[in-house]
């Protein structure tokens, strides 16, 4: 994984988040408190704006700088959770490298695990993890099975879609929607939606090349 790929992904994520403003916002208005899109957009804008600062750095330092920037400039649950993701991914990338699919999958899995630990949440609680955990598992398994890049990207997009859809029937037990109880059933989780949008953005970028 090269620095240029991380930076292109950041730009693709920013564009995709903006393109999905209406979807994400309406979900957050339904079961959240209306600030998720604003925070995610601000986060992706801030990172996209670091392009010149990051372009000369090695991948692990890029990930670390993205993490610390998110930690200090976004706030809310999503700021600290995405910061934890990038800072842990950076740590593993620095130790093991990100030279092949297995190493990238391992770094990604470590990042997701950091979100699990910081948020004390898991699959089935109507959060971003309902997308990220299945995506991470799929990534690890398909990389280990020697799948092609195109096959892996398609599998990750599918896993994100299925994970997102699974939040529809859930009762939230973490995050702002907990007060809703059964009234939240039938609504997709906005945090899971924005993660699905990001996974698609990065996979589509790879598939296009």
């Amino acid at each position, binding site marked *: 994984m090269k620095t240029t790929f991380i930076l292109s992904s950041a730009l693709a994520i920013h564009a995709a988040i903006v393109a999905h403003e209406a979807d994400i*916002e309406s979900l957050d*208005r*339904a*079961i*959240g*408190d*209306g*600030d998720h*899109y*604003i*925070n995610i957009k*601000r986060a992706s804008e801030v990172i996209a704006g670091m392009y010149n600062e990051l372009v000369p750095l090695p991948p692990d330092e890029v990930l670390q700088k993205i993490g610390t920037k998110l*930690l*200090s*400039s*976004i*706030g*809310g*649950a*999503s*700021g*600290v*959770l995405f910061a*934890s993701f990038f800072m842990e991914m950076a740590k593993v990338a620095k130790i093991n490298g990100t030279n092949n699919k297995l190493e990238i999958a391992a770094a990604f899995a470590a990042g997701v695990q950091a979100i699990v630990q*910081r*948020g004390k949440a898991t699959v089935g609680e109507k959060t971003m993890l309902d997308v990220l955990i299945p995506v991470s598992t799929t990534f690890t398994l398909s990389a280990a099975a020697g799948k092609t890049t195109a096959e892996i990207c398609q599998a990750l997009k599918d896993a994100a879609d299925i994970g997102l859809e699974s939040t529809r029937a859930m009762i*939230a*037990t*973490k*995050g*702002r*929607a*907990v*007060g*809703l109880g059964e*009234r939240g059933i039938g609504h997709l989780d906005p945090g899971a939606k924005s993660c699905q949008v990001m996974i698609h953005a990065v996979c589509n970028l790879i598939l296009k090349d």
Partner: protein
Amino acid sequence: MKKFINKVDDILTESLSGFALAHNDLVSLHLDPNFLTRKQLAQNKVAIISGGGSGHEPLHAGYIGYGMLDAACPGHVFSSPTPDQMLAAAEAVHTNKGILFIVKNYAGDVMNFEMAGEMLAVGHATVLTSDDCAVINSTYTTGRRGVAGTVIVEKCVGSLAETGASLQACKALGDKVNSRTASIGVALTSCTVPAAGRPTFDIGDNELEMGVGIHGEPGRRREAMREADAIVKDMIDAILADFTSRNLGPTKNSEVLLLVNGLGATPLMELYLIYNTAAKLLVDAGLNVTRSLVGNYTTAIDMAGASITACLLDDEIKQHWDSPVHTPALRWGC
């Protein structure tokens, strides 16, 4: 959306600057990272620091000053502040007695303060406020939200800290006050987050949201609008049921602090009307309302609505509630 705004992105900085200017005898503002401290930093006491999303004014910066907070960290509107704000505030106000964070129980606030705590070299503890009885606590949720009862926690802990009490003692009092406090809110309209530009939720002219959170999170249920007495009765019933479910009694003649809090767009006239009914209902239930506070103390931007908070008093809580306080939003006895 019709609001007093120059540029949406500048709202927070301009409002904080105005606050600091208006209260320049009491507070100092530091920008980037954003935090506010007392003008005269206190010595040799536990430093009490709170923080949370903006939009709940006067919470928390309005409670900086003698007898309450040493510093506050305002986040973006309805979003938790970040660890660097908390660390900078801690650096500015800590003495040799440790730091107590007072944090409302929301995932973002909890995680950001937790991360700041992990990065902090100074002794510290956290009081999590969770007075909102609209969210039923259980092992499988992040639990009850912290709402207007936080003001009572900040007042009492702040008072104790002024006496030179230890970090452990301050945390213990904060936990006790929180454990004896219950709140519930009701919304008549939505709030509008300025950057979103439109109401967070839709609600009809003939509807109310019972159990609403201070960010406009939906509550227990959507109900038909009724006369005030019926709404207040449901709220007081919820609070009394919560006390009972937590084995707090209350016993006959238990003393109670009754706080009727406006959520931003409900006039004092209506808040006092609510107080009138709420106090009578508590007396009917055999309680003794001996302390009261009515006004906008924990708001949800421009939401029309109110919350009712009851705190079961004991001698220690009474002493620290009554003690002198001098902050922009709360002042008595000095």
